[in-house]
């Protein structure tokens, strides 16, 4: 597993305590899991995502990610409606391991409150949290 200094933590996304990331793209928000999360989980073998159109509040589970070690729930870092899901993950769950911030994205959300993203951690704050774990 990676040391903290080996982690890829881009500064154009915000981070949640449960290790999801959020990136603003136009009026939508794209959500995935961080490099730390995929590294901790190990080889991901299955990703279960919600239906498009599902309305979920912040903190609610939107899916599950299964690795060779464990099954973990995915939590909404912001509330809103699922506008799109990454269908590629059904065939290629390894994208989450290989490109957690790129082709390994999970869902696109139409946020209920666009300002909710501001409450999430910056790269620096997330790094501090990881150091404390």
């Amino acid at each position, binding site marked *: *597993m990676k*040391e903290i200094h080996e982690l890829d933590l881009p500064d154009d996304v915000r981070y949640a305590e449960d290790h999801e990331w959020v990136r603003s793209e136009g009026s939508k928000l794209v959500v995935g899991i961080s490099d730390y999360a995929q590294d901790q989980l190990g080889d991901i073998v299955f990703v279960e995502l919600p239906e498009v159109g599902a309305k979920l509040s912040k903190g609610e589970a939107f899916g599950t990610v299964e690795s060779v*070690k464990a099954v973990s729930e995915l939590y909404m870092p912001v509330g809103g409606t699922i506008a799109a899901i990454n269908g590629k993950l059904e065939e290629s769950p390894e994208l989450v391991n290989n490109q957690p911030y790129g082709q390994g994205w999970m869902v696109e959300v139409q946020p209920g409150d666009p300002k909710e993203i501001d409450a999430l951690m910056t790269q620096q704050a997330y790094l501090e949290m990881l150091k404390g774990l």
Partner: protein
Amino acid sequence: MNKNLGTTGLILNEPLLWEKGSKGRTGFSVPESDVDASPLDSELVGDGPDFPDLSEVDVVRHYTRLSTWNFGVDTGMYPLGSCTMKYNPKTNERQARLPGFAGAHPLLPPQLAQGALELMYKLERYLDEVTGMQATSLQPAAGAHGELAGMLLIYAYHKHRGDQRSKIIIPDTAHGTNPASAALCGYRPVPVKSNENGVLSVETIEAVMDAETAGIMVTNPNTIGLFEDHIREICRVIHDKGGLVYCDGANMNAIMGIVDMNEIGIDVLHLNLHKTFSTPHGGGGPGSGPVCVNDKLEPFLPVPRIVEKDGQYNLSEDFPRSIGKLDTFHGHFGVMIKAYSYIMSMGAAGLKKASQLSVLNANYIKERLKSTYHLPHDRPCMHEVVFNDQNLQAYKITTLDVAKRLMDYGFHPPTVYFPLVVPGAIMIEPTETECKQDIDRFIEAMQQIAQEAKEDPELLKSAPHRSKVRRLDETTAARKPCLAN
């Protein structure tokens, strides 16, 4: 003897039976027919099943060779946390094979099955006594079925009082199947976190318990191997709001005859006869998961129940509030005989001693390994101890590598990556089965592996080296499972 149990040996390959044998080979000679041949209805004629032609020695060698690839508790130490892989005494097998038991048909009328019914009746009473509960049903077929039975009992209790509730509290230190059992019964699981000491805080439960909540499912000792020391207070909080307390008894091996479950406030508890009471498991069954209840839930137990009158045993359906029948016939009777045999062999003092030794063994391992492996909760444990791989991260060695390398030393790996509340968990449950010499050998193997991690990490990453098959590609197996051929 050699310090290291693991060594090289001649391991024979073995093809599928269909790749063995040849046309015309046979295991026995069919006697010559002494009746005339007569034509068969053409509708009954067709290709026969695709069975290989084999001799007796072909078949015996086949299965004997396959058996040598196995590792079981009869082979060596099997410290699989939370599974209680204790030794299964052979006398249990002997009793279960007594012709009067083994040959009894489940549809025999009670007057012809008095011995079987008496054994079940007495086993129920013994389990009442071991747990402190008031009544027991042997019907649930295994652990998760016992959990479901417990949930159905709680549901029936609230329904009878005209008080329908929708939620069940489940701590993160409970067993992994608990939320599924609650959900299957229609309840919404409400997850709660344990505190920094690895146990539940009373305040956490107070904050979530309400009139909509049917109760809580606790595992005690919990899945980190710690005793929930606030359990009485937690039960009080649940009861004050009209809820009930379910206890997952999978970890009962730590507390047989020591903790009175009824006294601490448990309303329903399931037991795993295939763990605590020394019946075999690990090959997929059969298990047996009796539920033990207090007087609140006794009227709701499954039917038929075994009743005794003047030394005669009978099956009775006359329990109008019962949740009904849970499986075909009477549960896994063969397992009950083995558990009964175990209880009779051990006696009350012996069962208590077994629990004490299982706790002592786990604490001995904890104390001797805690300077080598990181111990997230450094406090007295019960029958199992949870370490993790934090001290090995600098060498890029993970829990999985340690587990695989242990096989080279002749030990079955412990449970890994569970419980989820401890990242990189290694959960070790030695049980009372192991003597001090074997436990010392295990500890030394673990210490040596930690040393290897520093000096030659590749040795761990490529382990196991001595097994029939080397490290399997678990990722591809899970991503692209080959489910047929």
